[in-house]
């Protein structure tokens, strides 16, 4: 319902109103004070516009305006009727074929698709040859032609809808097939069918006018736009305007239908209206005006200070990450842990300079010490310099290895890209290095794997390929963004071991590792220090052993206690849900869910305070946590 009142819906208003105007006009044709569209006045043939004939008269002296309106009546009636018939038949065929599959599918959808083996115009002409031209033939032909397209859309939508959980749930509840089809499937596949309907009306009009233009559609003397263009063609030297009017009426109506259809699609199916995916490399300037960069040497490998990220929304900017500060020392593994929406991945992407375009850094700095010892603020670095760092001093492994590899290129080639992008010498040398890397990350038969396409590898192997690409240029800092979340637990163990082993290896010694995850148990296994985030802020930071043994922030403590690993009969669940970044509770953002909150927690937003050597907690009563 919400979509109906969104600003997008208003886009429909203009084309919708104009279409309604056209439809009303042609429907009201008999009531309008129009001249008889078929009455010939040969003495006034090709007369120019006059008060009695606003658009002039045609080659038989018939009133052009009247013929356009009456012609529109024929065209629109034929098109709407055909689109409607095709819609009903096609939807039924597709619905039934997609839901029941098997023999039913063969008899409905597949049979209808045979029609698609013919170019539509040809099939139309074939039928006209046999039945002779006329409006009834037109409706029949157009219905036959557009039914398969409709059936296809309905079929594809039903096919994907029938496996949806909420459709299965209906079956599981014991609903009959017809109840499932008409109560659950049909309403949910209606939007694309509606779009298809307006598409079909437009296509039918084009085809109808084309046939009439050839003299094989509407039979004279009935007026029709296609016929009018045909007739005007023969006299276009004397009266070019005569050609223009029906062309304008036809193209204008189809244009309106198409615009309406496009907007309808945007309103009904927000997926199609994806904008703002432009990746960083296409953007010229990177950050907005940030405070003057400090290039004074920072302790350690990377030092993030006061990082604040803002999300552009129609309702105004929202700060999704606020005042995040932490550092990573050479050789250290830091885990950034939090739930979805905590801002952990955005923080990692900010370091890489790969933030999505709707998110911009508005404050803070990320000081990074390069291999040659120079320090630069990554937030202020121009894109060209940033590119030279990515995959070189600074690299990342993403969550889903299946989507992170380009399916159309061989794995080895994609890893070689990382080497060649940073001056790794000849392609031949890069190939040898890839095989060596593949061996290093434990891929069996590395030479063959380098020649394989991604779909020929298993999930764990693909993640090894991604890791090989990430460590190809022996980075100073490796970021791993949920690298094992998409993998099975036995494969997760292998990947964690590989990361630990790479860190201890001679080649990449001193490499810092930032491990982003939601899994506390994984943090325990791999990290030296842990940074806990909640609702866009760091709530606790410290050495892993200490934080797990004695958490100082109630959120960390509650997370640890709620894990099903504990032996307690009832799990210590955290009440409530993670707050939306657009509606953060005032004061401490965790207060509404916190068992230890006091009145003061609801008003004052706590600062991060030091609660021990190398430990901070963002809580006004950190010590009270046992």
């Amino acid at each position, binding site marked *: 319902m919400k979509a109906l009142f969104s600003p997008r819906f208003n886009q429909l208003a203009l084309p919708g109103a104009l279409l309604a105007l056209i439809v009303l006009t042609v429907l009201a044709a008999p009531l309008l004070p129009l001249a008889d569209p078929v009455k010939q006045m040969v003495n006034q043939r090709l007369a120019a516009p006059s008060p009695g004939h606003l658009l002039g008269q045609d080659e038989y002296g018939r009133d052009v305006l009247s013929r356009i309106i009456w012609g529109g009546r024929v065209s629109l009636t034929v098109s709407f009727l055909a689109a409607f018939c095709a819609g009903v038949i096609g939807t039924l065929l597709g619905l039934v074929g997609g839901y029941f599959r098997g023999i039913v599918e063969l008899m409905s959808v597949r049979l209808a698709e045979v029609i698609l083996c013919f170019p539509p115009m040809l099939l139309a002409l074939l039928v006209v040859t046999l039945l002779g031209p006329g409006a009834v033939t037109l409706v029949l032909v157009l219905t036959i032609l557009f039914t398969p397209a409709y059936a296809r859309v309905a079929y594809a939508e039903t096919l994907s809808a029938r496996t949806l959980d909420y459709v299965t*749930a209906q079956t599981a509840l*014991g609903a009959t097939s017809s109840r499932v089809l008409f109560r659950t499937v049909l309403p949910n596949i209606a939007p694309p069918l509606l779009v298809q309907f307006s598409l079909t009306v437009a296509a039918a009009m084009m085809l109808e006018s084309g046939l009439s233009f050839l003299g094989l559609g509407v039979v004279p003397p009935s007026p029709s736009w296609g016929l009018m263009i045909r007739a005007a063609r023969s006299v276009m030297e004397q009266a070019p305007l005569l050609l223009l009017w029906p062309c304008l009426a036809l193209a204008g109506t189809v244009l309106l239908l198409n615009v309406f259809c496009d907007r309808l699609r945007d309103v009904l199916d927000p997926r199609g209206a994806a904008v703002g995916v432009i990746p960083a490399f296409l953007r010229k300037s990177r950050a907005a005006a940030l405070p003057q960069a400090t290039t004074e040497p920072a302790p350690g490998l990377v030092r993030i200070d006061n990082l604040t990220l803002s999300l552009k929304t129609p309702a105004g900017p929202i700060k999704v990450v606020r005042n995040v500060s932490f550092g990573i020392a050479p050789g250290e593994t830091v885990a950034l842990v939090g*739930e979805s929406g905590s801002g952990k991945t955005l923080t990692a992407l900010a370091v890489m300079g790969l933030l999505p375009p709707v998110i911009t850094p508005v404050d803070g700095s990320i000081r990074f010490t390069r291999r040659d010892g120079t320090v630069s603020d990554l937030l202020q670095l121009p894109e060209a310099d940033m590119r030279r760092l990515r995959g070189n001093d600074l690299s990342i492994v993403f969550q889903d290895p299946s989507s992170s590899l380009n399916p159309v290129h061989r794995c080895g080639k994609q890893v070689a890209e990382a080497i060649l992008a940073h001056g790794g010498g000849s392609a031949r040398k890069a190939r040898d290095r890839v095989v060596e890397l593949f061996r290093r990350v434990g891929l069996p038969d590395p030479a063959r794997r380098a020649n394989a396409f991604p779909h020929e590898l298993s999930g764990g192997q693909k993640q090894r390929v991604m890791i090989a690409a990430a460590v190809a240029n022996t980075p100073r800092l490796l970021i791993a963004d949920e690298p094992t979340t998409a993998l*099975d637990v*036995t494969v997760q163990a292998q990947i964690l071991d590989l990361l630990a082993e790479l860190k201890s290896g001679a080649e990449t010694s001193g490499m810092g590792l930032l491990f982003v995850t939601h899994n506390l148990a994984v943090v325990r296994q791999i990290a030296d220090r842990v940074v806990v985030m909640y609702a866009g802020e760091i709530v606790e930071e410290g050495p892993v052993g200490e934080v797990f043994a004695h958490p100082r922030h109630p959120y960390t403590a509650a997370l640890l206690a709620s894990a099903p690993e504990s032996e307690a009969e009832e*799990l210590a*669940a*955290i009440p409530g849900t*993670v707050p939306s970044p657009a509606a953060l509770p005032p004061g401490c953002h965790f207060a509404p*869910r916190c068992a230890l909150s006091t009145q003061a927690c609801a008003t004052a937003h706590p600062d991060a305070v030091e609660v021990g050597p190398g430990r901070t907690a963002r809580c006004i009563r950190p010590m009270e946590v046992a």
Partner: protein
Amino acid sequence: MNVHVSPPLAFPDRRPLLRAEGLKRGFKGRGGLLGRSHEVLALRGVDFALARGEAVGVVGESGCGKSTLARVLLHLTPATAGRVTFDGKDLGALPKRELRALRRRMQLVFQDPFASLDPRRPIGDQIADGILIHRLATREGAKEKVAALLAQVGLDPAHAGRLPHEFSGGQRQRIAIARALSTDPDVLVADEPVSALDVSVQAQVVNLLKDLRSRLGLGLIFISHDLHVVRHLCDRVVVMYLGRVVEEAPAAELFATPHHPYTQALLAATPSMHAVDDRREPLKGEMPSPANPPSGCAFRTRCPRALPACAEELPELLHAGPGRRLACPPVLAEIPEAPHA
């Protein structure tokens, strides 16, 4: 079908409510009009039983067939071989009308709470569906029942008129559970019901399921890849690998003394929050494709204890102590209570 001597059940004293024998389920492999179409078996012969009010966990990694098992047990996907009986009735042989009536007694909760609710209908209507389909109450009565169900899963009954997108993931999962409970089922099948939820919300849903089970005497089949959750919630655990059950045992015993090398590896690979275990040796490789399973024991390609004989014969699930069954001949030979081969 060869005659199958049904092995001793884990709970021989209780008549099983839901029982499956020799379940196989194939899916058509890729291949076009003239391409060789081969069958990929997601289930390769599974026996399963659930007693009234019992909670059984089914664990395994992705591709082991556990989700297929959930759907086949409810006859949402028919088995290609074997049969499922519910309260003595063969689901495959039942007339459609009777099968639909029987569905009242067995319900399903899905993994993804964002996909399991119809985005276009108010949640109250969706919860009422089951009540109205089975004519358990009048329209008015259904409204009252929906309110009661919402309260039971910890939601505000006044929110019945809202659409699913107005709720968070955890709340949606509660709604899905309320919908499943609407028909007063005897068995609830939960397919990874917490794995799509935020960490801080998972415990809420686990507690809710545990609470409902003790209050309503509900039978529960809990499908999960998370061993810790299963241990917390279930009486008995079934471990699956590549479409077959490899081990079955009371929950506490399985975790204390896992017999099958795969169960052991699975437990070792599951990271713990309490201690760093440096000694664990992760399994080599990954689960083979179900399209091309290894001969004999499917696990032998990754098994640290594999013997040449393991490639020869498909290991049978055999008695391995009270309430325990195991499909690993080398280990069975070491267990005193087990019948030696």
